[in-house]
């Protein structure tokens, strides 16, 4: 008999960088048990429906997942309008995002259903943030970078006050196993940049696994885009869940079938 499949998903308040209270979307299984926590990091365009769907997908697969709205400081409004304003202002600072991710981790750990393990996953700019979090934050047990660009920064002019350090330069501090998912047709990160990132991880003896997909570009998991590649995406999702189950599950009750 399969596990009961109910889940609950809702807006919650979490406390991020500087103790600021903001909105997040929190989804978890309704059945009894302890569950690993996952922080789902959105991409630059905003806290969109696809990211919300991904958060629920993790709950369906036996995780307690939270997606913090990284632009909550902009106030009320539709996520697309808020995202446009944040973009016009040059994006959010890495330091602020790290504080918000740390706050989301704290939220997960404080829940009675927490099994004590924390995973991070991010997509696009969120993939870069996930890589950064694994290098800068304590208490992360597994991290997934889905096609995060600008992990390697080839032009120093691309560094600024909000993004002062290339994540690749922090790799020595990477403290958790890393799963990387990439499309070989992606232009950022390019296949060459993915290779160079892997070379650094290998040289430093880090625990990582990279999966590269042919006939796929950027954001190929995204069902709302022409970039969606169902075969590659299904295989990628299987690898994501296998990775998180391997590193985060503490009992059979905490995981669902892949």
């Amino acid at each position: 008999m399969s596990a009961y499949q109910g889940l609950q998903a809702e807006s919650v308040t979490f406390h991020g960088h500087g103790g600021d209270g903001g909105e997040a979307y929190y989804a978890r299984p309704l059945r009894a048990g302890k569950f690993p926590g996952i922080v789902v990091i959105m991409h630059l365009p905003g806290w969109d429906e696809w990211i919300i769907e991904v958060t629920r997908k993790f709950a369906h697969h036996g995780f307690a997942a939270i997606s913090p709205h990284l632009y909550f400081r902009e106030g009320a409004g539709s996520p697309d309008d808020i995202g446009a304003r944040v973009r016009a202002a040059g994006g959010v600072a890495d330091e602020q995002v790290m504080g918000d991710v740390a706050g989301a981790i704290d939220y997960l750990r404080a829940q009675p259903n927490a099994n004590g393990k924390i995973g991070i996953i991010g997509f696009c700019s969120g993939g870069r943030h996930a890589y950064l979090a694994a290098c800068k934050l304590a208490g992360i047990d597994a991290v997934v970078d889905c096609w995060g660009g600008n992990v390697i920064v080839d032009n120093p002019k691309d560094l600024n006050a909000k993004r002062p350090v290339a994540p690749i330069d922090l790799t020595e501090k990477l403290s958790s196993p890393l799963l990387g998912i990439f499309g070989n047709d992606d232009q950022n990160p390019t296949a060459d940049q993915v290779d160079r990132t892997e070379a650094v991880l290998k040289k430093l003896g880090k625990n990582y696994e990279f999966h590269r997909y042919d006939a796929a570009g950027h954001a190929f998991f995204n069902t709302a885009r022409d970039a969606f590649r169902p075969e590659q995406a299904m295989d990628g999702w299987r690898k994501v869940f296998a990775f998180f189950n391997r590193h985060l599950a503490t009992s059979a009750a905490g995981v669902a079938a892949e």
Partner: protein
Amino acid sequence: MCSYIVEKAALVGSAKGRKGWMRIDTANVYFDHPYYSTLDHVLAIDFTNEGEGGRDRVAIELSADSARALVDRILAALASGEIAHPSAPAAIDAQPARQDAVRQEAVR
């Protein structure tokens, strides 16, 4: 990958959004992943009034080819329109760089 590159254009004009007509003073222009379109990348323009806080916008997301075609048609419309209306106030307000040219033409 999401980029943070935004081209800003100062505008004099107006746009109609959810709340009706509003004055606009800025266009934020970028080529990146869309919010709504299914295309991988779009040329997006957010028309806003930053002088009033920039909270409201009129947004468009266009394919690269159609954006280029639109640029071409805008220039064509300006060219033909300015011939038909050589001292059009809108042209003078919206394009300070063209103001002298238009005035010189009017003097001739």
